[in-house]
């Protein structure tokens, strides 16, 4: 199937601000290379997981995909159109097809809006549905879709009158009311209690599958990604180091960083203990090491890793960016 989203060599750099002193001595402006050359495709009905630790650029990638940030370089092909440079009316049109669910259900809803207003607003903005009655019907249908039944019970509630799980469902409904083709979810369950996460995860999986949306799921927790995503991309310091079918990567991670990540995941199993395969922490995206970004922490680093950035190599069903596989 033809991918609906094709990201090519996406770069998102932020320039640090220069203080007065630094301006005087004319030092170089340090740029935070949050996303530094990322490429992936997403097919309708499929969810791609973006995994990695804080500072790896996964959240920036997600937000750039819905144009909360403007890419510094690279292309985002959505339905064969490059949405990276869009502005104004064209950008708004794109927004009606690409939506996002945020991490914090307590913050992503305007505390002064009732659920009805939260859900009707996107329809009003894009001029969908020709009458108030039709909009209300769409809102109710969407509430049903996310499991908030009966919808009438929720329409007049304020966010603070609902539980975390309910709020997140409203957030999902808000994304869904436009019937988007792309759904980005940024750690949608990490702030919810464990026993209600399953409901939201199941909901997201079903929606992506049934509505044939392209899904991008961001998480640092690989076990959640395993549950929702068919494909996974592991990110480190702004680049994808390994991308391929989720089950394969989890069963047999190839990139040393993927291996370390998977070894460290704690398991609810008394016989399995997490292992530490790397030392230290990921450096700041301002100071990216030369050559392969991971080489300072990599136990298998070769001489070439210090000097040359590794190419993306195809290994079976997946791609790995590592000199060990060239």
């Amino acid at each position: 199937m033809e991918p609906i989203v094709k990201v090519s060599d996406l770069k998102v750099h932020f320039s640090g601000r220069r203080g007065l002193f630094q301006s005087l001595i004319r030092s170089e402006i340090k740029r935070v290379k949050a996303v530094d050359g990322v490429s992936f495709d997403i097919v309708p009905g499929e969810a791609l997981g973006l995994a990695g630790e804080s500072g790896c650029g996964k959240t920036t990638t997600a937000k750039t995909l819905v144009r909360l940030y403007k890419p510094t370089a690279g292309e985002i092909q959505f339905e064969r159109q490059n949405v990276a440079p869009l502005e104004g009316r064209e950008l708004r049109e794109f927004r009606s097809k690409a939506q996002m669910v945020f991490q914090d259900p307590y913050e992503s809803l305007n505390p002064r809006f009732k659920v009805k207003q939260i859900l009707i607003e996107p329809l009003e903005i894009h001029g969908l549905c020709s009458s108030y009655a039709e909009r209300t019907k769409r809102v109710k249908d969407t509430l049903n879709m996310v499991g908030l039944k009966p919808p009438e019970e929720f329409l007049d509630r304020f966010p603070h009158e609902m539980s975390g799980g309910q709020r997140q469902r409203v957030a999902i409904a808000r994304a869904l009311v436009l019937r988007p083709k792309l759904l980005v979810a940024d750690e949608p369950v990490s702030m919810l209690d464990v026993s209600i996460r399953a409901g939201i995860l199941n909901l997201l999986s079903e929606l992506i599958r049934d509505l044939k949306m392209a899904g991008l799921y961001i998480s640092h927790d690989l076990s959640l990604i395993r549950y929702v995503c068919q494909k996974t991309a592991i990110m480190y310091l702004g680049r994808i180091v390994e991308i391929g079918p989720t089950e394969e990567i989890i069963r047999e991670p190839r990139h040393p960083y993927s291996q370390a990540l998977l070894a460290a995941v704690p398991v609810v199993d008394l016989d399995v203990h997490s292992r530490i395969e790397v030392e230290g922490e990921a450096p700041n995206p301002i100071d990216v090491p030369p050559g392969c970004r991971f080489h300072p922490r990599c136990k298998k680093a070769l001489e070439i890793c210090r000097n040359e950035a590794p190419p993306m190599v195809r290994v079976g069903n997946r791609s790995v960016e590592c000199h060990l596989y060239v």
Partner: protein
Amino acid sequence: MNEIILSVKDLKIHYATKRGLLKAVDGVTFSVAKSQNLGLVGESGCGKTTAAKSILRLLPKNASIAGGEILLKGHDLTKLPLEEIRRLRWQEVSMIPQSAMNALDPVYTVGEQIVEAIKAHSHVTHKEAMERVNYLFDLVGISPKRINDYPHQFSGGMKQRVTIAMALALNPSLILADEPTTALDVIVQAQILKRIRELQEAIGSSMIMVTHDMSVISETCDHVAVMYAGKVAESGPIKAIFEEACHPYTLGLRNAFPSIFGEAKRLISIPGTPPNLISPPPGCLFRPRCPFAVEICSVQEPAMVEVSLGHRVACHRIDKVDEIREMAAMEETWSKIQAV
């Protein structure tokens, strides 16, 4: 067997709120032996953090200990005045907080802060205190050259190591770890948990690990108490809780953790939400969300019953535990309950 360091009996803690008395902890009993790790696991609002913090009397003004005892090496902490408790802090019982940001003062160097804590609780010279700080930093894996750095110069993981060093400064008998790795990435979390375990063994202190994450429990604890709505639902050795759980809530909680290895099983939610602790319904507080509730569950609170050595459960339906375990693994069991 093992000397009991801490024994909490029937602890009750209430919060005075505008809407009434909130029974955050309502009759909780657990104990920690020497060099042992107890995990207090449960979701938000279950009372685990309140129970742990009450040991050090770190609760807000509107909280009060309404009953029960907290016996630290035989002394009842609930009866001691605040100055006595202050003396015990850091020395006998210390804490690793959830976020290092809450523990470290941004305007002092990390060295100064630990030295101050040491000197406030023991009679040592400044030089001796600094030596101790060097030793501690080495123990937690921070270069001693960073003693004069400010908290903002450290990364999240490093800051947490500093708070661990602070917690260990005076060789306490008991460490309270309040979700110490929730804010950390998975690799750093693994490093920190490993470090905490090693240090605890080296120093011989006991630990109470408060968390909502059962995988963290399985990495660090010997004993577990599962809390729900201010009460202990089930407690016992970790093997018993993980492999022979009896309480429907424990079983439901297990279902909610996706596995990274092995078969990808379907995740099951526990429908509904925890009860209102200001005016809780009668009977078992888990009943509205329990697929196995019967009439007595709405009327009478279940008492703690010992099902095997050290393994206790508060549930009316213990006799049917094998059936319950089987049914709890199936999704239809839980989706029958009407709730969102």
